[in-house]
C-alpha cells in the first residue's frame, strides 16, 4: 500500500516529463495516421495508443493533486495547437518527401508507389535548374533592395517622426491592406509598355540609359527581370521595414547624443552606435523577405516573361497543371531544404536570439 503511494507520488512529481512525453507520443500517432504509414490492424493499435495517451494524462491530472496539475497545465494548453501543427504541418512535410520519392503507376493513374525514386530529384535539377537559380538570385536582389529602401525610411520615421511617428508608420502599412494580387496587377498596368512610367522615361531620355544598364529591354519595362524584382521588392518591403523600425525605435537617443558629446561625427555615431543596435531588425527582416520571395510565383507570373520564371512557377505548374506530383514535390523539398540550410548558416554567422 505504501509502495503504491510512493510510486504515485513519484509520477506526480515528474508530471512534467509525463506531460511532455504524452504530447510527443500523441503527435507521432497523428503523423503516422495522417500519412497513412500503417494499414490494417495497425491503424487500430495506433488509434488505441492515442486514446490511452490522452486519457492517461487526464487521469493523472485529476488524481495527481495540485502539484501534478500545475506541472501538467502548460502541456494541456499547448496540446490542441501542437497537435494541429503535427497533423497539418509535420505530416504534410513527411508525405511531400514520400511522394517526391515515388513514381506514378501509369500516366493516368492516381496511385503512387514509394520506391526511392531519386530520378525525380535529378529531373528537378536538370529540367528546372535555371528556375532555382533565378529564384534565389531574384530573392537576394530584392532583399538587398528592401534594405536599401526600408532602412532609411524606418530611420526617418523612428528618429525624425516626432509626434507623427505613429501616423507615418500607419501610412507605410496602409498600402498592404489591399490584396496582394490586386497590387501586383496594378504594377503590371503601371509598368505597361504604353503606360505612364515608360513614356515618362523615354520623354526625359532615361530610356536609353536604362537600356544600357539592362534595366529595360527593347524599350519595355513590363515582362523583364527588372519588373519581377521590382514587384518582389514592393510586395515584401513591409516585412523588412517593420522589424528594422522596431529595433531602431528601441534605441535610446541618449546613446547617440553621448557619442556626439564624445566628439564623434554624425556618420561615425551612426556606424558605431545605431547600426550595430539595429542589426537584429535587419536580420529578422532579411529572413522574412528572402524566404517568401524565393518561393513566390505571383510576381514572376504577372510581371515577367517565360524567361524569368522562378521555382515557384515550376512547382505550381507541375503540381496543378501537369499533375506531376512526384517531380513537383521533389522541387518543393529541395526548395525547403535549401532555404532551411541557408537560414541555419545565416543564423550561425549573424546569430541572434530574438528571431521570433
Amino acid at each position: 500500500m505504501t509502495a503504491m503511494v510512493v510510486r504515485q507520488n513519484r509520477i506526480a512529481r515528474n508530471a512534467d516529463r509525463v506531460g511532455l512525453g504524452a504530447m510527443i507520443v500523441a503527435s507521432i500517432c497523428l503523423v503516422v495516421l495522417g500519412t497513412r504509414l500503417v494499414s490494417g490492424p495497425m491503424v487500430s493499435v495506433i488509434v488505441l495508443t492515442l486514446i490511452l495517451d490522452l486519457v492517461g494524462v487526464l487521469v493523472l491530472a485529476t488524481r495527481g493533486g495540485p502539484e501534478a496539475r500545475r506541472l501538467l497545465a502548460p502541456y494541456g494548453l499547448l496540446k490542441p495547437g501542437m497537435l494541429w501543427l503535427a497533423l497539418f504541418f509535420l505530416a504534410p512535410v513527411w508525405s511531400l518527401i514520400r511522394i517526391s520519392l515515388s513514381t506514378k503507376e501509369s500516366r493516368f493513374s492516381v496511385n503512387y508507389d514509394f520506391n526511392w525514386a531519386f530520378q525525380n530529384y535529378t529531373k528537378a535539377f536538370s529540367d528546372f535548374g535555371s528556375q532555382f537559380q533565378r529564384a534565389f538570385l531574384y530573392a537576394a536582389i530584392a532583399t538587398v533592395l528592401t534594405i536599401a529602401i526600408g532602412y532609411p525610411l524606418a530611420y526617418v520615421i523612428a528618429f525624425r517622426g516626432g509626434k507623427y511617428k505613429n501616423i507615418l508608420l500607419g501610412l507605410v502599412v496602409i498600402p498592404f491592406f489591399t490584396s496582394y494580387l490586386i497590387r501586383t496587377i496594378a504594377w503590371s498596368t503601371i509598368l505597361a509598355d504604353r503606360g505612364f512610367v515608360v513614356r515618362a522615361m523615354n520623354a526625359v531620355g532615361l530610356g536609353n540609359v536604362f537600356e544600357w544598364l539592362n534595366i529595360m529591354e527593347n524599350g519595355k519595362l513590363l515582362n523583364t527581370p527588372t519588373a519581377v524584382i521590382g514587384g518582389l521588392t514592393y510586395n515584401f518591403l513591409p516585412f523588412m521595414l517593420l522589424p528594422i523600425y522596431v529595433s531602431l525605435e528601441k534605441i535610446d537617443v541618449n546613446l547617440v547624443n553621448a557619442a556626439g558629446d564624445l566628439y564623434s561625427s554624425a556618420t561615425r555615431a551612426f556606424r558605431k552606435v545605431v547600426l550595430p543596435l539595429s542589426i537584429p531588425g535587419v536580420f529578422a527582416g532579411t529572413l522574412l523577405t528572402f524566404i517568401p520571395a524565393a518561393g513566390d510565383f505571383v510576381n514572376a507570373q504577372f510581371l515577367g516573361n517565360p524567361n524569368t520564371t522562378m521555382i515557384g512557377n515550376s512547382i505550381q505548374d507541375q503540381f496543378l497543371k501537369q499533375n506531376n506530383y512526384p517531380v513537383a514535390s521533389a522541387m518543393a523539398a529541395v526548395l525547403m531544404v535549401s532555404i532551411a540550410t541557408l537560414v541555419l548558416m545565416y543564423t550561425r554567422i549573424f546569430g541572434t536570439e530574438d528571431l521570433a
Partner: protein
Amino acid sequence: MMRKRTKYGRYALNVFAGFGLVYLFAPIFFIVAFSFNKPKGNFNIAWQSFTFDNWLHPFAEESLTRALWKSIEIAAVSTLISTILGSLIAVALSRYKFRGSGGINLFLVLPLTTPEIVLGSSLATLFLGQNFIDFGMTTIIIAHVMFQVSFVALTVRARIRGFDWTLEQAAQDLGATPLRTFMKVTFPLILPGILAAGLLAFALSIDDFIITFFNSGPVQTFPLQIYGASRVRIPPQINVLASMILFLSVAILMTGTIAGMRKSAEKQATAKKFKLLHRK
C-alpha cells in the same frame, strides 16, 4: 562647412524617405483612381472617363461578390479556431517555465520560415492521400489555421510578455476561484493582445493566395477569383471592392491608434496626479 554638409545630408535622407512613401502608394493611387474609370472592353487598365457607376454598383459582378463573401466566411472560421489555439500556446509559453519550451519555440517558428508554396503543396499531398476528405472549404480552413496558429501564438506572446502573473495569485488569495480569476483578471488583461492577433490572422487569411491555390478544389475565394479572372477580364468592381477593403482597414487602424493615444494620455495624466499627490 561641416555643419552645412550634415544639414544637406539630413534633407537628402528626408527626401529619400518621401520618395519611399510615394513608391509605396503608387499602386494604391492607381487602384483607387481606376475604381472611378469607365473602361472600354474587358480590361480596366486604360483611363477612359470618370464615372461613379462602379461605386454605385459595387456588387454588380456576382461571382466576385460571392468569392468575397466566401473569403470572409473562411477567414472568420479559421481566425476563430487559430486565435483560440494560438492564444493557449502563448499563455503556456509566457505563464509557465517548463521542460521542452525551447523546442516548442523553435517548432513554432518553423512554419514561418517555410515558403508558402512548400506549405501549400505539402498539405495538398497529405489531402491527396486521403480518400475521406474532398478539397473545398474544409481543406482551405485547415490550411489557413495551420499558418495562422504560429502568427497568433507569437503575436500574443509578444503582447503579454510583461504581464504580471502574480495578479492571479493575488486574486486567489482574496478568495477567487481559478475560473473566476481567469474571467475577471487574466482574460481582460490579455484580451487586447488576443484581439490584435486575431485581426492579423483575419487579414492573413483573407489575402492568402498561394496556400489556398493548392488546397481550394472547386471553391473560389476572393484572391483566387481575381487570379482566374485576370486573364479574361478585369472589371472595375475589383478596384471598388479593393478600395472598400482598404478604407475599412484604415478606419479600423485609425480607431485603434486614436484609442491607444487616448489611453496613453490618460496614463500620463494619472501619473501626473500621482506625482503631485506625493509632492504634497
